[in-house]
């Protein structure tokens, strides 16, 4: 049991969520799931099945739900916004569909910011870490460019580097390959898989790319707010 508990990175119990605007709508119905250390999980489903909504709840950004959410067996619901921001900063990395970099900052600054905010290391250490992550993703040569000046595929890799900077326990991604061509898409998948297998990093990816999902360790399929497999 203790072994089991240590292995659990993220656990959700009986998550229910309603949208009330414009009419009441039951988006998520009794969702329970668990993600273990080093597991590469994808969530599949049609548009509107609630998979993105679930991801935002699991990511602690959305707090309007009922049910229990545990990160490394620590109960998350009921914590204040500032505490949740700190938990996100320490333990969760994000990758969005539209790469979402701060366009006025350089690549290096973008990668460094979450670590600077966490403030666990000195600035020079953070800079070294950030360069190492950029190296890992093969974009170190772009480090001093402004974020708005690089290509889409490069931006997505910068976003992955940023997600890794605080050595999180889990990385969550919302359609990380959604607007990339197949070559870049494969590239991103390979990077994520390597991270998962070599660094024992848990990954939770929302996608509706069938090929992408089939290559992951486990596929969770959702329909109408429920997990069906």
């Amino acid at each position, binding site marked *: 049991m203790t072994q089991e508990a240590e292995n659990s990175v993220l656990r959700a119990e009986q998550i229910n969520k309603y949208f009330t605007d414009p009419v009441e709508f039951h988006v998520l119905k009794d969702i329970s799931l668990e993600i273990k250390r080093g597991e590469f999980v994808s969530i599949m489903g049609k548009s509107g099945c609630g998979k*993105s909504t679930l991801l*935002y709840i699991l*990511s602690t*950004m*959305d707090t309007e739900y009922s049910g229990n959410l545990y990160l490394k067996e620590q109960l998350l619901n009921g914590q204040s*916004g*500032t505490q949740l*921001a*700190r938990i*996100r*900063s*320490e333990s969760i990395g*994000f990758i*969005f*569909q*539209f790469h*979402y*970099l*701060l*366009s*006025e*900052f350089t690549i290096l*600054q973008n990668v460094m*910011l*979450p670590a*600077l*905010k*966490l*403030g666990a290391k000195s600035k020079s250490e953070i800079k070294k870490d950030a360069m190492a992550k950029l190296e890992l993703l093969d974009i170190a040569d772009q480090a001093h460019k402004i974020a708005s000046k690089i290509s889409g595929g490069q931006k997505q890799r910068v976003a992955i580097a*940023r997600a890794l900077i*605080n050595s999180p326990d889990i990385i969550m991604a*919302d359609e990380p390959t959604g607007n990339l061509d197949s070559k870049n898409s494969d590239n991103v998948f390979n990077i994520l898989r390597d991270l998962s297998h070599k660094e024992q990093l848990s990954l939770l990816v929302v996608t509706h790319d069938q090929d992408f999902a089939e290559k992951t360790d486990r596929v969770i399929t959702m329909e109408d707010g429920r997990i069906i497999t």
Partner: protein
Amino acid sequence: MNWPVILSISKTHLLSRLKQSVIAALGVTFGIGTFIILVSFMTGLNNLLDGLILNRTPHVHVYNEVRPSEKQPLDFDIRFNESLNIIHSIKPKFTQERIHNALPLISHFKADQRVKGVTPLVRAQAFYAAGSLQMNGLLNGIDIIEEVRLFKIDDYIFEGEANALKRTANGILLGIGIAKKLSLHVGDNVQIISSRGDNFQLKIVGFYQSGLAEIDNVQSYVNLKTAQQILGEGDNYVTDINIKLHELDEAVAMASEIESNFDLTAIDINEANAQFETGTSIRNIITYAVSITLLVVAGFGIYNILNMLIYEKMNDIAILKATGFSGTDVKYIFISQALIIGMIGGILGLVFGYGISVIIDNTPFVTEALPTIKTFPVNWNPIYYFIGIGFALLSTFLAGYLPARRAEHIDPIEIIRGQ
């Protein structure tokens, strides 16, 4: 709170839209600059105008007034106590013009803790003689050293100097109007005929100019002793006593105290110049109203620019929140931007205001009323600079606070989903 990170984000935001930031800061600069100019100049002018009155006017003026007795002989008769007495054609009671026991009275006033100084005054009617022509005149016998100390009479002396009167026993500070009429210069003699018909030769040691032609055509200053001689009176003959207090506010109490203790008339400065305080306070209200309006306008400019900035930065806000920045961090990012704009704009405004004030202070300003003033008056009180920078920070903080609070509560999911 991780201030270096927050400030470095603010800096990047401000520098990446330098033009907007500069315009917002210039708004503050002009607001604060104008405030400094307006307030320094207006209060400088106020002090000058107040000085015109306050320097010249004693806080309490004590003299013997000619007036009818309050109790007529009829009132002393008990038989008419119950009746309504009406007396027509009441004449003033005969009193001497001098203040009785003036010298002990002066030492008594001087001993009072509240009193800064006391000067005796002898008013003497006389004529200025020029050939066959005689012109009406009023000679004020004064203690010149005390007058300079308490009432700054030297500010109104034109040519010559006040101390020369002390050195010259038969000296006179001649009104500028008379001097012009009689074509007299400093160093000349002027002939005075007293009301009793005696002739006196007085030596002109300077000219006196009050700025009021009526006074300058009549009034001159001589030594106390000269005035007493002209009147043929002794050392203890004093017609008026002027008192200057440490605190202007005590004038009213002091005046009524003197009236009740001694059989004398005592006029306090508020009674003598009721209009002066009204003028001062209205000028102050106008100054502050205009300044605050300017600063509020500058504040709206900053509010607008920050509001626009936050609309443009919705994505950034969502990313910052998703990557571990709390709502409070985001709020401080925007408030710090507002305060940086306020700080830079405010300091430039102080420099700008100071510069223009220096120019005003060196602009020639010639007035008949104050012969010693050569340039426009400016008040250099540093308190206005503190108020200026304080208001700059306060108004930019308020202008930044509302948009920043909105940024604090932006839901990152809505932005990320909405894309």
